[in-house]
């Protein structure tokens, strides 16, 4: 079973090598942030608001100071200027409302879990105990929870207006309203009688990231200087360093941010969190290390949530199923404050509603709304799962309306493989793809026709257990992103990636990447890419990452960007290294550069194989520098910083068969087939793992998960006992395969894969359930499709009240 590289000629790219990371992780030889115990550490505990919206009328931390082991305690007032404001770097419109987001709440709390005060103690238990001693009184204010109520005139405002007057809960409105032929209504009108319009409201419910490692941070100041080392369970050490410098005023060049082992992120650790600001500021103030590790219950209220959109979708087609136009109206929940890219998430979706389909008209509008809930932000897929859900769901609804097979409807409208590159109505140019090939493979693996026949049979016999088939022919945009595009979208950062490769005098290779893995296997995959170019064994390459002290340049890991963007930098750096080494090798071998070829890690004189110089020997020469050609600098290293030309557009066809018990509402996945096209695969084993994990996340959203608040803003799903992350018993095995259409937007031909499964699967699941129940009058089932929600949909379909 094991795939090892016995053949020195073998290209390691494309092989399912077992991961380098695993030996350590499987033996508990790990370095999670919470493992770090520095001398003199103060443990931070946080008093959080139990109310969704309230004025703080009294707050006194002095009683906590009398508790054993307590060293300090602070309120916002005590911290003064040190109480930084959490930044948002994506002001999506010119008139967006961007209220302050103080780390410790000032005067008012705005969601359950808002930070009110902190206690620092030499013992973790003691810090938590002392929170009880803090005296605090609240005057409750009406909680704004329902999004539609929030934007009504006269609603209580989560934030006052900038001038102190009564505010509005509309954070921003982002319209994309083309004139003329591109307008939805004009297109429908032009079609005359030959038109079918289907309108639906879909709810994409609020979810959590659900990484298994809780967030943690350790901030360690160095003596009297400004220097500070910060360990954080983050996806973005590089971005964090810049933002912490901006927020705290500490010089960026004295901050070192390290993301040691990080136990999953899924977007939830793509953030600058208020607790990170507090740890840094208090460590700086007290001159001692400050450590904070959240409990899971804290995570549920304080780490950002995701999704939470109301989607009003209208699709129009001719009577034979040619799509004429699509209209999308969103209300997107921002939560109580804007975090790092909160407002931009629904707009990432804006580009993806037209998906793989050709259509002349497309309109989009999004209203971002403040509510007294935990802030939302990126979670695996970020905007694209919402878009994919809506379009793939409404394609099924349109097919039902037209009495067409849903796959036929898709085939009729999708971009054919001859039509690439194709510029969509949303303005993206998809470089490559082959929806026919992925679909054919998936249909084959799935046994579509046999399942349809079984469905017919069960319908005819009135079987209480009905069978449904769900389709999701999805694409997505990932590999964030061309810096210019990000700039045009008002995103205040670039999307480049960096790599430095050093050939060390002892023959080992150090590959320094700006990506920041937390489960993706970069150490293995990046070694494979570099080894394929440098001709050295994969195990001779050490990948250095996630430490701004050792890997100073990078834009980190999110948006399925690490391979699509970071991979390009690795390739370029490796090629540059070979070019530089070639000059030295030619000098050593006393020949011209043009006479050399580089094969299996050695420079050889063409036609004279006896004369050769391995890369390691060149590296040693570059180190001693005793005999370098004129003008060549000592040391052998090369670097590359690459800004991608475009996004990458993975796609695939997911098919799901579900048995639905119409008496109990219980759904059981019978089979799930995912054929993904992620371009060239560097390590198919890792690719497959990413697909599996994405599927589990998407199926979790479709069947089990959902954040719930009561009308007062209390979080009802405040632990893993109430928020149901699927367990092994809740999920099936998956049938996965790939088609390979290399991407042309990057020289490795790769596309992103981390989010694909999470983006594709929710509509496949819900389409299957609705398909099973459509004869019973069901046209939608609310996510998560719990037995209760399915049962209600059946009752509603049959004329009862939902």
């Amino acid at each position: 079973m094991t795939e090892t590289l016995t053949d020195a000629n073998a290209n390691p790219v494309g092989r399912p090598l077992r991961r380098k990371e695993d030996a350590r992780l499987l033996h508990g030889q790990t370095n999670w942030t919470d493992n770090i115990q520095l001398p003199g550490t103060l443990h931070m505990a946080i008093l959080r608001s139990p109310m969704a919206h309230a004025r703080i009328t009294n707050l006194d931390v002095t009683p906590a100071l009398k508790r054993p082991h307590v060293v300090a305690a602070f309120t916002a007032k005590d911290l003064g200027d040190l109480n930084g404001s959490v930044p948002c770097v994506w002001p999506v419109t010119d008139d967006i409302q961007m209220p302050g987001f103080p780390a410790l709440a000032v005067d008012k709390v705005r969601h359950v879990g808002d930070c009110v005060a902190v206690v620092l103690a030499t013992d973790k238990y003691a810090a938590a105990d002392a929170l009880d001693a803090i005296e605090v009184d609240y005057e409750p204010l009406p909680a704004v929870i329902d999004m539609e109520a929030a934007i009504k005139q006269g609603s209580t405002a989560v934030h006052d207006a900038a001038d102190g007057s009564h505010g509005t809960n509309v954070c921003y409105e982002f319209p994309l309203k083309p004139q003329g032929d591109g307008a939805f209504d004009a297109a429908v009108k032009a079609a005359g009688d030959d038109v079918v319009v289907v309108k639906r409201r879909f709810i994409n419910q609020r979810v959590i990231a659900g990484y298994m490692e809780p967030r943690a941070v350790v901030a360690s100041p160095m003596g009297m200087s400004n220097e500070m080392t910060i360990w954080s369970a983050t996806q973005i050490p590089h971005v964090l360093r810049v933002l912490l410098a901006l927020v705290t005023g500490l010089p960026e060049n004295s901050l070192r941010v390290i993301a040691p082992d990080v136990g999953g992120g899924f977007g939830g650790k793509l953030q600058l969190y208020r607790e990170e600001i507090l740890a840094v500021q208090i460590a700086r103030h007290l001159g001692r290390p400050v450590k904070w590790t959240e409990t899971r219950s804290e995570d549920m209220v304080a780490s950002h949530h995701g999704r939470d959109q109301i989607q009003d979708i209208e699709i129009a087609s001719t009577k034979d199923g040619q799509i004429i136009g699509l209209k999308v109206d969103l209300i997107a929940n921002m939560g109580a404050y804007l975090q790092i890219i909160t407002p931009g998430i629904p707009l990432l979706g804006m580009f993806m509603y037209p998906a793989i389909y050709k259509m002349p008209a497309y309109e989009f509008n999004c209203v971002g709304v403040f509510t007294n809930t935990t802030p939302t932000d990126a979670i695996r897929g970020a905007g694209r799962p919402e878009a994919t859900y809506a379009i793939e769901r409404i394609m099924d609804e349109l097919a039902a309306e037209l009495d067409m097979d849903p796959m036929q409807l898709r085939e009729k409208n999708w971009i054919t493989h001859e039509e690439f590159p194709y510029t969509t109505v949303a303005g993206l140019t998809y470089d490559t793809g082959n929806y026919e090939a992925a679909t054919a493979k998936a249909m084959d693996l799935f046994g579509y026709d046999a399942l349809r026949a079984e469905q017919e049979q069960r319908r005819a016999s009135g079987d209480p257990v009905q069978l449904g088939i769900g389709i999701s022919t999805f694409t997505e945009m990932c590999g964030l992103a061309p810096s210019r595009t990000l700039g045009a979208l008002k995103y205040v950062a670039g999307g480049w990636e960096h790599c430095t490769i050093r050939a060390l005098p002892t023959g080992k290779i150090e590959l320094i990447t700006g990506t920041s893995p937390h489960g993706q296997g970069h150490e293995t995959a990046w070694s494979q890419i570099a080894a394929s170019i440098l001709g050295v064994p994969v195990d001779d390459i050490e990948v250095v990452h996630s430490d701004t002290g050792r890997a100073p340049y990078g834009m980190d890991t999110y948006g399925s960007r690490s391979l699509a963007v970071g991979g390009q930098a690795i390739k370029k750096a490796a090629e540059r290294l070979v070019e530089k080494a070639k000059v030295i090798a030619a000098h050593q071998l006393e020949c011209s550069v043009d006479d050399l070829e580089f094969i299996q890690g050695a420079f050889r004189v063409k036609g004279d194989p006896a004369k050769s110089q391995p890369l390691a020997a060149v590296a040693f020469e570059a180190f001693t520098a005793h005999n370098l050609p004129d003008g060549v600098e000592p040391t052998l290293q090369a670097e590359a910083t690459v800004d991608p030309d475009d996004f990458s557009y993975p796609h695939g066809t997911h098919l799901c068969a579900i048995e639905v018990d119409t008496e109990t509402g219980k759904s059981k996945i019978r089979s799930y087939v995912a054929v993904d096209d992620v371009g060239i695969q560097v390590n198919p084993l890792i690719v497959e793992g990413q697909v599996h994990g994405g599927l589990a996340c998407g199926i979790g959203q479709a069947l089990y998960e959902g954040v719930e608040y009561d009308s007062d803003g209390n979080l009802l799903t405040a632990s893993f006992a109430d928020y149901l992350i699927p367990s092994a018993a809740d999920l099936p095995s998956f049938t996965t395969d790939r088609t390979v259409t290399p991407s042309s937007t990057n020289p490795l031909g790769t596309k992103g894969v981390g989010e694909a499964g999470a983006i594709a699967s929710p509509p496949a699941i819900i389409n299957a359930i609705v398909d099973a129940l459509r004869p019973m009058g069901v046209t939608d089932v609310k996510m998560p499709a719990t037995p209760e929600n399915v049962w209600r949909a059946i009752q509603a379909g049959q004329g009862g009240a939902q």
Partner: protein
Amino acid sequence: MTHIPISVTVDGTVYDVEVEPRRLLVHFLREDIGRVGTVVGCDTSNCGACTVLLDGKSVKSCSVLAVQADGHAVLTVQGLAEGEHKWHPVQEAFKECHGLQCGYCTPGMVMAAVDLLQENPNPSEEEIREGLEGNLCRCTGYHNIVKSVEYAAELMGGKS
């Protein structure tokens, strides 16, 4: 708070320490004796990340008090292999079948799998899924974890 002396064997080493009566076994392991390979993922005993063997049986070490382990033997993921080159078959299988990604659920998942295979050397897919129900993983979708346990069973001679 008064401290109570306890004597616990962890991965073959005896530790004589004094702990608060309310101290959780997992915090004793991580913070008092530095066995940080075992981790904490929740505060409601739902995730299983903290799973260890207590006298050979799997327990969630966040729901056991350190004082309850007095006089008993704890085996963590750090004590599972016999030296660097003799991995436990479950560890081998997880690597071979890509049964881990971020590795945070892994210490608990591996220990739960060891216990499962002790109880049932030849489990079906369904028995594996049911048996690991108390251990959450967000990365793998469990597909390769199930494969890993099946392969471990094979390595241990339970399956042919």
